[in-house]
């Protein structure tokens, strides 16, 4: 297959739009300024995916349609705690270092809201329907087993989001399956 560079440029623009929407939505939910730091598309071998995400939690979702794939929203542990605290302001008081059930619910939902705007950007552009699963919370250490289930090679859309005031970092990784992605590129 030959990939048309203009289509990759377009795909990159869509991803960037999606990342900006993610930052905007996170800013509304947390009530503080949030900026998009990085938005890029890589082609990787899945076993080389960065392993720096060990202390933290991750919202894991799958999406099916055109394209289908996997999606991860990663927060370092401290950041996740801060996010939960900001989200639950006026709803529920803070617990200890671990995560309470309502905190888990809040983090899952933030993963859900952030990623659906990204995925729906594709669906609207391609005029297809992409269904997103309900979110699951996993430990960052479980990411490897998810990656192992995937194809050897993968496209990955990465967005790095940063809330300066609270020093909260969040990384979003979207892994569409290659076959679907090729079809998407043809449709663009």
């Amino acid at each position, binding site marked *: 297959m030959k990939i048309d560079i203009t289509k990759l440029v377009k795909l990159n623009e869509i991803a960037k739009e999606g990342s900006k*929407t993610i930052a905007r939505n996170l800013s509304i*939910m947390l009530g503080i300024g949030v900026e998009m730091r990085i938005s890029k598309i890589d082609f990787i071998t899945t076993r080389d995916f960065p392993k720096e995400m060990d202390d933290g939690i991750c919202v894991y979702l799958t999406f099916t349609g055109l394209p289908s794939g996997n999606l991860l929203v990663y927060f370092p542990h401290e950041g996740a705690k801060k996010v939960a605290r900001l989200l639950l302001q006026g709803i529920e008081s803070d617990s200890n270092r671990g995560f309470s059930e309502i905190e888990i619910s809040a983090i*899952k939902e933030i993963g*859900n809201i952030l990623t659906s*705007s990204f995925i729906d950007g594709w*669906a*609207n552009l391609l005029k297809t329907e992409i269904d997103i699963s*309900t979110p699951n919370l996993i430990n960052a250490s479980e990411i490897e087993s998810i990656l192992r289930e995937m194809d050897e090679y993968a496209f990955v859309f990465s967005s790095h989001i940063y809330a300066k005031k609270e020093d909260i970092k969040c990384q979003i990784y979207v892994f569409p399956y290659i076959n679907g992605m090729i079809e998407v590129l043809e449709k663009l």
Partner: protein
Amino acid sequence: MVKVLIVDDSEFMRKLLRKILEGHFTVVGEAENGVEAVQKFMELKPDVVTMDIIMPIKNGISATAEIKKVNPQAKVVMCTSVGQEEKMKQAIKAGADGYITKPYQAPKVIEAIQEVLRR
């Protein structure tokens, strides 16, 4: 006061919405999936249902269609994430009367529900 039933599979989102609505409306109950939503709708007879779309067991679109079958006058406001245009088209087909977008912004949520009630 206007009675509202909150439907969402996320406990956090239910609590958040409850906090936004209280003071403006009476929250009569919560449901965490589409099956529970239909049951509680019949039991509690709310004036408005706020309906999440993506939920386990039964999604919000099917639940809306069922509620409308039980009572065509029922008012259902869909809770969608920004940009879910395809899903919204299906929801309108199922009979949804309005929508609110996640992340919630309190004034917009109140306004959307009042708008649906005016109709």
